[in-house]
């Protein structure tokens, strides 16, 4: 039985009317004025309202009449096909989603999951079709839409789970695409996972085709053994008797209800144990262990921090790479007469990165100086045509050039690399001094000053600057208050040129005395030298770009931690997605006589995955099946004839008549009672 107008059922609230009539209206008398109802109000409501019902029969008749009339208005009807649709008929399309994230390695989860998958696939009959999708942070189809038992059972993975983290949305999207192509009447999804809370972020826009049933199979078991993960390491560099040392601090987290005591946290370098520290972590606690500083002996030292074995082994090791810090090599061309004090002092400050500055007079610049410099700073110098051509060659091979245009600066017109033409000096020392405004905060040089209270360029006073006319193709990064460019940039070949239209010493401005000076010089040099801090490790799922990381050139191959050899340049550029945990070795000229190691990349599992907190599988099922509900029934409903429909809806008529009859009886009865 259903209702055509169920909203009328709200009228059931009207049932309270006869009750109220019986309880209150009968007792209506004059109003009693009372100082305060404060205490009356505090007496529980029930006892205030509870009164004796004087005539139960009358009350019941009135309530029944009201009920019948409301029910009549709600138009009840009988549904002929109320029998539930049995979803067991017809061939079925089964998609099995198997979670192979590394958390499945906890306890016997992986074995139970594979058993569940095998059992499900074994039930795929000759008319059915089955698919197996393996997923972690992304999903891959192991076998697609087949009924061959051999292929299905052979696709179940035999090895350990992957190093990826759990993400349900990609797997459900793949399942959705497989089911959408299917023509079979029954569509089923079997989701085998440990249902970690971290793998689902609520509604992720995944909806399975209508009529699909999702069956979650949870292999979660209680977390009984300590589960400790090393989540990160911090490298602090220092120099000790001319040797670079690095102090390693490891952070470990215990993601279980059991405290760990007496564990060990070991530091290894290149496979050899270096130090070992005791580790005690409370339940759901974190700990941080600082190791003694280690001397950096060479490039690509492979470090591993390893915690003693526990329930989930894959998150116990944390790999990283330690290489000697690479300084930014700067060639400072200077007349010597003008002060380069502030510049050299500014570049002497800083550890990450360090600046290796070589100061040369314009006529003493050697070819070797230019070769080793990543960035050249021409500080208020009259550049000859010969020097200009040599500097342009630095730019061609990807170097950077900062030209500081003070009173003496000149640039040969035949070497067209500058972003602007130098004009005459503009003296602002006698009138209002100039200010810099209109900074391009999106540019890497000025990005650090973007946030409020992180450096104020407008406080710098300029007493003089060169009027510069921007060249076509040049970008103006900052302007003086009268609109002439203050800092310009231009791309030349693979390199970049910056032109600063004033001095970087005290002769034309007080910039060196301002807090913005040091970051400005540092950011300019880093930008020109294309300096990028090398990442000591990547996380599984991230992509390593060999070119931008400066890992060799030409043809390259990577050797994965499991020993597979992957060519880097096969498709889409020299990029490599981290899929395993450990060290990836990037080799140059693979298979040739001069094969050499270009770089080593450390890859770690996602630490968030080691949090084994489970979620309710129904949450995913509800989100994925939001489109499926109710469609099944209507698809199979048999259309009724108008007569049958009318017959099934005729009940309201009887209800209404009965209700009216009861009201009549009520009138008679109450009249008789009141007379009595």
């Amino acid at each position: 039985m259903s209702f055509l107008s169920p909203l009328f059922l709200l009228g059931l609230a009207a049932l309270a009317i006869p009750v109220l009539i019986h309880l209150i209206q009968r007792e209506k008398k004059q109003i009693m004025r009372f100082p305060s109802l404060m205490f009356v109000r505090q007496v529980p409501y029930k006892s205030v309202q509870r009164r004796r019902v004087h005539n139960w029969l009358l009350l019941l008749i009135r309530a029944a009449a009201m009920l019948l009339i409301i029910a009549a208005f709600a138009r009840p009807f009988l549904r002929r096909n109320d029998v539930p649709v049995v979803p067991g008929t017809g061939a079925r399309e089964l998609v099995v989603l198997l979670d192979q994230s590394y958390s499945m390695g906890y306890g016997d989860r992986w074995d139970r999951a594979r058993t569940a998958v095998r059992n499900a696939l074994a039930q795929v009959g000759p008319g059915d079709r089955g698919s197996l999708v393996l997923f972690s942070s992304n999903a891959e189809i192991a076998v697609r839409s087949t009924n061959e038992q051999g292929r299905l059972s052979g696709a179940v993975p035999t090895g350990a789970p992957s190093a990826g983290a759990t993400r349900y949305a990609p797997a459900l999207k793949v399942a959705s695409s497989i089911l959408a192509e299917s023509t079979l009447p029954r569509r089923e999804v079997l989701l085998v996972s440990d249902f970690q809370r971290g793998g689902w972020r609520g509604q992720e826009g995944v909806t399975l085709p209508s009529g699909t049933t999702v069956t979650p199979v949870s292999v979660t078991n209680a977390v009984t053994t300590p589960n400790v993960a090393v989540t990160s390491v911090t490298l602090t560099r220092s120099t000790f008797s001319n040797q670079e040392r690095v102090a390693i601090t490891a952070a470990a987290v215990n993601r279980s209800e059991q405290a760990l005591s007496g564990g060990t946290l070991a530091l290894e370098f290149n496979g050899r144990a270096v130090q070992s520290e005791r580790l005690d972590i409370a339940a759901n606690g974190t700990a941080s262990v600082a190791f003694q500083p280690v001397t950096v002996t060479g490039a690509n030292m492979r470090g591993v921090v390893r915690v003693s074995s526990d329930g989930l082994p894959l998150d116990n090791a944390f790999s990283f790479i330690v290489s000697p810090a690479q300084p930014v090599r700067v060639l400072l061309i200077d007349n010597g007469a003008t002060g380069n004090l502030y510049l050299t002092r500014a570049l002497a400050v800083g550890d990450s990165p360090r600046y290796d500055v070589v100061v040369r007079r314009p006529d003493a610049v050697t070819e070797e100086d230019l070769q080793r410099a990543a960035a050249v700073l021409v500080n208020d110098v009259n550049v000859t045509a010969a020097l200009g051509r040599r500097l342009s060659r630095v730019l061609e091979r990807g170097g950077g050039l900062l030209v500081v245009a003070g009173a003496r600066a000149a640039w040969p017109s035949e070497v067209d690399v500058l972003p602007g033409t130098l004009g005459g000096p503009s003296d602002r020392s006698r009138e209002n001094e100039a200010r810099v405004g209109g900074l391009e905060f999106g540019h890497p040089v000025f990005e650090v000053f973007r946030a409020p209270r992180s450096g104020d360029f407008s406080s710098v006073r300029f007493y003089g600057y060169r009027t510069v006319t921007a060249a076509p193709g040049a970008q103006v990064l900052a302007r003086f208050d009268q609109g002439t460019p203050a800092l310009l940039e231009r791309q030349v070949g693979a390199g970049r040129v910056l032109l600063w239209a004033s001095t970087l010493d005290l002769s034309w401005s007080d910039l060196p005395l301002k807090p913005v000076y040091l970051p400005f010089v540092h950011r300019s040099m880093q930008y020109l030298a294309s300096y990028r801090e090398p990442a000591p490790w990547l996380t599984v799922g991230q992509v390593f770009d060999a070119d931008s990381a400066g890992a060799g050139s030409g043809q390259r191959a990577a050797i994965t931690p499991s020993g597979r050899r992957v060519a880097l340049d096969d498709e889409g550029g020299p990029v490599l997605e981290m899929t395993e945990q450990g060290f990836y070795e990037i080799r140059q000229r693979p298979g040739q006589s001069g094969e050499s190691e270009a770089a080593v990349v450390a890859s770690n599992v996602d630490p968030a995955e080691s949090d084994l907190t489970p979620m309710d599988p129904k949450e995913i099922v509800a989100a994925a099946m939001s489109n499926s509900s109710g469609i099944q029934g209507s698809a199979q409903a048999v259309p009724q004839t108008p007569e049958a429909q009318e017959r099934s809806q005729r009940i309201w008529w009887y209800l209404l008549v009965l209700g009216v009859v009861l009201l009549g009886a009520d009138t008679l009865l109450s009249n008789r009672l009141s007379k009595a």
Partner: protein
Amino acid sequence: MSLLAGHQPAGVPGARFMDPVVLARIGNLELVARAVCDGFINGLHKAPYFGASVDFAEHRGYVPGDDIRRMDWRLWARTDRYYIKEYEAETNMNFSVLLDVSKSMDYGSIGITKFDYARILTACLTNLVHHQRDRVGFVAFDSEVVAHVPPSAKHMDTVLHTLDKLQPGRPGKLREPLHKLAEHFGRRGVLVVVSDFYDDPEAIVDAVTPLRFRGNEIIVFHVMDPAELNFGFTDAQAFEDLESGEQMPVVPASLRKEYQALVRAHIDALQQKFSEVRIDYSMLDTSQPLDHALHRYLGARERKLRTRQ
């Protein structure tokens, strides 16, 4: 009492204090006050007119900062030590009644409203105090201060006149007017708060306590009608709150016990909380004579006099 049978309130002035209902028929407050006080005082063994003389109390060692004029030089001559002479407190003091004239006071089930009862009480206390040569003052408040007569030895008539003119009309609040008044009563004296205290006990004590801060002695009179205490109604009917106008269907018989328990708990809570802050609290039933209230006042005044100056 039989005297109250069939009387009409607000009648001709007369004596009110043998029975409050009878007194309520007397319009002249002064007359009422005098009748009651004289009768009351005659019954006391000890005269309530405390002496205006300055009585020596005790000696105390001199402490730098003490007034040298109060040094007992004779004692110094005998003992070669400095002593200060201490006296009983000054006898002429300030006395003010703070009367709640909110709408809820305008209720009476036995021929005298709580307001009339409180008014007579005020008049009597004022009269008594006036005869003791103390300064009398008066404040009427509901949600704000309605009338104010500053304490003075000559204000007895003004107080009675003001009292006579007052009519309860608006909903009341304790906190705002009392807090405002607390800043006003600078000189130490006796303050009498008369109200029906329809509020949370915490809030009431919180409202009254600041009056004590400057050393005033506080006496709190909680005026209640017998019907408010017993809830002796029989018919089920709608009850209307005098202040808020809210109406509520009530079957008195079914909630009488709970009501009485709640009122009892309210009074007990007030009693306890006021005693915690050392404020003298008494509940006055408007069917009872005023002797009790007057005794309370005299007791408090005596305590006040015992404080050293």
